[in-house]
């Protein structure tokens, strides 16, 4: 592993660009390395962006990932496929980040003890959404076991904020296929979420 810089410091843009090329060429080891390399930075970028957000404004996941990409990757050297691969990794990273937040929320809830005064409904919303996200994550894992491509589409579209065209390009299929597969994935997830929470 030429690019293995460990988990201590940030790898150089050149190293990451090389990893991207290897990973997008299908090297699983490169992919794992890539993940370890960019996840902390991506997490930090996402976290800051999330905290900077303004009331009532939506968060632009793609802008965020773009920012990370520009920071982490030597983009002049990276090709389109490499870039898409980065986005795929970023989508997975977003999933982890958000599910992590959801877990923390869940722990807070179970920890309890907080006396809410008038603003507590927002807390309730948060808890509800945390529960939903955790359930969704579970359903998504199950879905990916049955149909890996559907699982990836959910990750790219929902967590990664990618467009149909971007997903199609990344998966090497037509836009139309992505659209149809996305509908099927949503059907699966919706059916799973409509179920009462129960051990699978």
């Amino acid at each position: 592993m030429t690019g293995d810089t460990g988990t201590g410091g940030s790898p150089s843009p050149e190293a990451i660009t090389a990893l991207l090329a290897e990973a997008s060429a299908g090297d699983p080891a490169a992919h794992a390395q890539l993940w370890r390399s960019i996840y902390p930075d991506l997490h930090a970028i996402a976290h800051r962006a999330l905290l900077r957000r303004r009331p009532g404004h939506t968060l632009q996941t793609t802008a965020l990932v773009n920012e990370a990409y520009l920071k982490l990757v030597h983009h002049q050297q990276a090709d389109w496929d490499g870039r898409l691969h980065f986005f795929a990794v970023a989508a997975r990273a977003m999933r982890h980040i958000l599910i992590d937040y959801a877990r923390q929320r869940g722990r807070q809830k179970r920890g309890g003890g907080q006396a809410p005064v008038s603003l507590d409904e927002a807390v309730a919303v948060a808890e509800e959404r945390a529960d939903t996200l955790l359930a969704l994550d579970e359903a998504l894992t199950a879905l990916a076991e049955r149909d890996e491509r559907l699982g990836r589409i959910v990750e790219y579209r929902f967590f990664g904020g990618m467009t149909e065209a971007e997903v199609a390009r990344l998966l090497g299929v037509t836009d139309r296929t992505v659209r149809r597969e996305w509908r099927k994935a949503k059907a699966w997830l919706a059916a799973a979420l409509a179920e009462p929470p129960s051990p699978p």
Partner: protein
Amino acid sequence: MELLSHERWQQVNALLDEALDLDAGARRRFLDGIGDDGLRAAVERLLTAEAEAPVFLDAPAADYAVPLLPDLPDPGSPARGRRIGAYRLEREIGRGGMGRVFLATRADGQFEQEVALKLLRPGLDTDDARRRFRTERQILASLSHPHVARLLDGGVTDEGRPYLAMEYVEGRPIDAYCDARRLSVEERLRLFIAVAGAVHHAHRNLVIHRDLKPSNIVVTPEGEVKLLDFGIAKLLTPAPAELLDDPAAGVSPTTRTGQRWMTPEYAAPEQIRGDAATTATDVYQLGVVLYELLTGRRPFEQNGGGVHAVEHAVLEEEPEKPSTAVSRASGRTGRSGTTGLDADRVSRARRTQPERLRSTLRGDLDTIVLKALRKDPEARYASAEAFVEDVKRHLAGLPVQARKPTPGYRMQRFVRRHRAGVAASALVVLSLVGGLGAALWQARVARAERDEAETLATFLEDLLAAPNPVADERLDTLSVRDLITHSQARVEAELLDRPLLQARMLHMIGRTYNGMHRYADAEQVLERALALRRAHLGDRHEATAITVRDLAYARAELADERVGRSDAAVVPALREALAVLRERLEPTDPEIALTMAYLAQALPYDGLDHVEAESLLHEALAIQQMPAHQWTGQSVFTLMLLAERRMQVSDFKGAAAYYGQALELAAAHFGEGHTRTASVHSDLAFALRELGRFEEAERHARAALPVLLAARGDTSLVVNQTRRTLASALRMQGRYDEAEGLLRAVLASAPQSPDRAVTLGALATLLREQEDLAGAAEAQREVVALLRRRFGAAHPMLAYSLTKLADIQTEQARYAEAEQILLGGLAAWPEESGPGRQLRRSLVALYEAWERPDRAEAYRGGPARDTASAQAPHRAP
């Protein structure tokens, strides 16, 4: 989703590919073609799920996850002792989507004051936003109401974070407070009235809360309601213009403002859609709060379905009736250990049992709450005030506006209302006049409100004056009179520029006066109403005609009161009114029927007039007994007039039949405790006594008496009449002591009563039967004196009373005195018929008792030729 096997999933997957692109019909055919039932079910389930997939899946997950992100970067976290503006933070007392709340004290040494300081998320990064924040803050700071926690101060910290200092309120959220104190439904409603009243005050000051929920409504240990966070939600959302002008932020104009700190369970549909909040939004949220206070549940709850499911429900589903919601609570098994609400606990917290709670909520409260929760803001109560009014009306036992007035409902309300008693009636009118004042205020504001004022006027009209002319006498109390006078003054002062509405209100007040037997006041007000309507609508308008009619009614009663005879102008006026109404209205309009009844009442009791009167009454009755009009109760009035007509021609059987019908209707419409029902009882007793059915007569008189006494006092003529009827029925059953006691009570209670002669006559009869002839004679002599004074020497009534006096004297063996009276009578009434015949009969009896058979023979009934001899009684044959 149960896990499908890989193989199964492949099958399902392939079928889905085909099915997804089909339309509904083709899909059904496609599904029908799947032979394997299990496979078919799985595909169908996924297709359904796809159609109902939560919308949040179509937006990036980060948006959805925003509320669960950490509040603030840790480094900037405020700590105890930190100064913000003029305040020093003491401790954190809450946190949420908006930011954090601290207990803080003033740190500038000005004065000791505890405040709730809300430190908000950053976000005021443009001059524009800061300016707007300041403006809004000033508006909120000007909001002063005892039930609204005041905004004291506000500003922006050095880091650009806005903060607000609010009045610090120690208390519990209203739902927890109610449950802890086990407040009854009624107590909860009274608390809610205070809440909604405060919201209305804010609305009048152009402030919308936008985030009403129990945790924002606190009750202090003293039981005082305080609303928190008024208008804060708006303060924290970017202005729409700002969103549009800020493409760099990548914000779409449809961003759901305020969504982040809004719980979907309390959100109005328009808030979920991202539309602007209005006063109707607060009305909706008040509805949710009331729902929860009453049932312990929210109309749309998150039961594992997730936020999107709640949002979907708020937008698309109809909430359960509160009465159903509390029913369901018991049968519900908490899913995955969630809310284990059960009906027992909910009802215990309301100091009642499940079944009682259900029946308390069923009906009005269901309707009131659901009206506030309508999806369409237009369909909700027009204001928080209208909402409050309906709750008050419910508490007072009045018909609520939210309900369509179905016949059964009106009846039920009347029954309930009149069981409530005098105090409740006063309360009813108080709240009505309160509402009237508000309606007038609104009338000047906008067209929508104007329509509401019209509606209210109609409502008042119905309520206070519809059962004219025998309206509820309980209204005739001093405080109520003052209130009516007060509203009259307001109508005259404030509606000068709206003559038609003014006329309508004056007319309504006039009818109310009629119902209260204040005919002079009624005449004055109705004359003004009539002048306005003649000027603005013309003579041939139905509203003018109805005013003419009601004025004629007042004048007829006034003439009767003042001079004891009819006003010659009344019948022509009523005929004119009837002609116009027949021309302008449907032939079966109840107004036509009522006018016919009034006219029939005013027509004399003889000849063709009497025939016409009865025919008018039958016609009126036919209209009033049509199913659509049955609720008005006016047929009771018509039936009583018919019965009176029958009484006049001594058809007591016919009269009793009409009274019987009237009684049945009155009991159903007004209830047994109502004075109108009691009056029918009384008149029926009279007819039954005439028919010799004394026990029945006694029963009906006894049913009438306590109600009439309570309503009218023991000096009223109706009470006297009823007591006499009862006395007579008792006398005929040989119960003399009771009967005498009743009659003496009448004489003692109102010595100057115009019916004194009638009571004395009854007493004379009673005493005579008990062989107290001296007492009887004394009473009867007073009768004669009273009648002579009242009617003069020529009235037939006098002849009858003289005859009776002479009869008593005959029994006393005071023959000479009796003879003198009777011969004097014959001189005045020489005819063989009528009084003359009575006099002759008594003379015969006298002479027989006196043992003067020759003289007796001279006065025995016979042909007219005996008249000459009768005129010479002392002449020997």
